[in-house]
């Protein structure tokens, strides 16, 4: 059976940073565009600015929102909402106009996904301050996406650096609340979801390393008991369910083992436990994936990089990786649905 070709929608992110130029660089990669039917949502004039900065030109047909089905492998289409004139924008500065632009694009892309017209959504970097100025009420993109998609099931954020994945049991929470949020059930649920996410990329039995919560993973209970009372039993539960899961390991050395290939994924207990290591190891290459939703959503892990915007030096690696990951996830889902 030929690999199914997924339909991917790209929502333009914050217009004042590097988003337009990394998108322009992605759209100049005809080899990648052949892998999917790509539609882009935004303002053509903003993309044109990005093309000028990046020194590339893309041959992309402008269509109406109702016509995105015209997208074919290697022939992307652009839905020009004409809602932001880049001449009114200051580069490298967060603004309500920029935030509103990104919000509208992401919302339209999610609505296309909700109505089954696309199989995956990619968005280029957003700016939190700009979103806030534009009145965006959501603390993170996953809650935003779940809300628009009217999705009530479990969903969570994953990060990918090269071939290594990271998932976490708690996310954007005050650190003080983390220990109280950890339960055996919740950790087991995260182990299940992580195995399912890596399974969705074609990995049969991903090897998952689970981090402890405390220094030295509690050192036998001397520096905290969560490893003994909660995390260890959850790892056991996961093993009984057939997962290749090990731990809890001290969080400061877990990355060394994972990086040398001992594991496919690290499950962290809290945000910074994973994010510190991943961003240190490959700030420019990391990808964020929102998993568990009706469609996969991906974005580069880096931000809008206002300090280097407009200079043509922005590295598109993470955007390209995000696109490739999304295509793989969406294609696998289509293949499973067809089987």
């Amino acid at each position, binding site marked *: 059976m030929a690999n199914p070709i997924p339909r991917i929608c790209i929502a333009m992110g914050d217009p004042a940073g590097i988003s337009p130029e990394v998108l322009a660089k992605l759209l100049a990669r005809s080899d990648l565009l052949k892998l999917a039917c790509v539609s882009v949502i935004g303002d053509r004039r903003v993309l044109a600015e990005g093309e000028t900065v990046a020194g590339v030109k893309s041959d992309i047909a402008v269509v109406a929102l109702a016509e995105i089905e015209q997208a074919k492998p290697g022939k992307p289409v652009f839905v020009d909402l004409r809602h932001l004139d880049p001449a009114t924008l200051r580069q490298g500065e967060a603004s309500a106009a920029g935030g509103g632009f990104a919000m509208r694009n992401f919302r339209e892309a999610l609505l296309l996904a909700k109505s089954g017209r696309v199989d995956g959504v990619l968005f280029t970097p957003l700016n939190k301050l700009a979103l806030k100025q534009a009145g965006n009420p959501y603390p993170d993109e996953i809650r935003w996406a779940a809300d628009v998609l009217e999705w009530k099931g479990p969903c969570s954020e994953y990060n990918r650096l090269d071939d290594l994945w990271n998932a976490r049991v708690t996310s954007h929470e005050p650190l003080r609340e983390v220990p109280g949020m950890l339960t055996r059930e919740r950790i087991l649920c995260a182990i299940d979801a992580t195995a399912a996410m890596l399974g969705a990329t074609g990995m049969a039995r991903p090897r998952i390393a689970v981090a402890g919560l405390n220094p030295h993973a509690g050192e036998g209970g001397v520096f905290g008991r969560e490893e003994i009372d909660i995390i260890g039993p959850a790892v056991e539960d996961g093993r009984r369910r057939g997962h290749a899961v090990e731990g809890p390991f001290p969080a*400061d050395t877990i990355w060394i083992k994972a990086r040398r290939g001992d594991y496919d994924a690290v499950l962290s207990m809290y945000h910074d436990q994973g994010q510190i290591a991943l961003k240190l190891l490959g700030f420019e290459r990391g990808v964020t994936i929102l998993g568990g939703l009706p469609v996969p959503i991906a974005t580069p892990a880096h931000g809008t990089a206002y300090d280097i915007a407009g200079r043509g030096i922005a590295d598109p690696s993470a955007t390209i990786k995000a696109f490739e990951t999304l295509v793989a996830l969406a294609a696998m889902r289509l293949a499973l649905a067809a089987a």
Partner: protein
Amino acid sequence: MSAPLALTLGEPAGIGPDITIAAWRRRGEFGLPPFYAVVDADFLAQRAERLQLPIRVTSVEPEAAAAVFASALPVVSLGMRVTAQPGRPDHSSAPAAIASIRRAVADVMAGRAAALVTNPVAKAVLYQAGFSAPGHTEYLAQLAQQATGKPTPTAMMLWSPELAVVPVTIHLPLREVPGRLTVELIVDTARIVARDLEARFGVARPRLAIAGLNPHAGEAGALGEEDLELVAPAVERLRADGIDARGPLAADVMFHAAARSTYDVALCMYHDQALIPIKTLAFAHAVNVTLGLPFVRTSPDHGTAFDIAGTGRADPSSLIAALRLAASIASGAPAAAASGR
């Protein structure tokens, strides 16, 4: 010739003796500064035999150590026999481990040694022998205080050529960290760090990057109050003192290469916030440096590793890095040590 380094015995059943022997054997390869071990000479010779690493061990006074260093591992013997077998800690060796620390501290306070380098101890063994300090570093601070009559607050810095970090809280369950943090604790720690980086590391106006406690440094209070209520006021107070402190910074974006080039040391709010980045960047060659003491003290950034003691599998990299850094700081030309960032 400047004074040699004093190296303590540490826990004799652990890998301390193994890495001491291995480091000395590689003295030429790494251009190691002269050091002497404060240890029972027979014990060390026996361990070398067991490891099939024949070496000459010569008992000397510190003043003679540098002269024999090229041809033999100099030891300052305390006349206390040590019999512990590798991997089998027993409390009979505790008095020798403690005496080794006391002698090395006395030597460095008297100027007979240029700096102190300590091998890892086993706290459980020392406690059985009536040791009352909470840890190795606290014991050194007590000895320093006895010698100088001044209170000696310390801070622990993990140092590597790529990154230096100081955890403000250390071996605490994570759930106790937010309650233990205070403006004073952050300010006091940062002051020790700023003072010693300037005085010992030769960093003219040290740049301190101070991490927030919460994800995204609390995102203006949305993800926790401590960054607004504790970390930000601490940074303000430090800046008012003329210390180049910045923060609270989002911990996940302060350790990549471009970010690291903007500061000399990162102050972290809890153990893993500091240890994750430095272990990930510099696993085998991070060095533990105690700041705040009246002398230079470094140690390898690992424990006693009883499971591999006496097998020859212990990696001396961190001890070698600790010896080199100690010598570099003590020689007063440590700007080289802090460079590379």
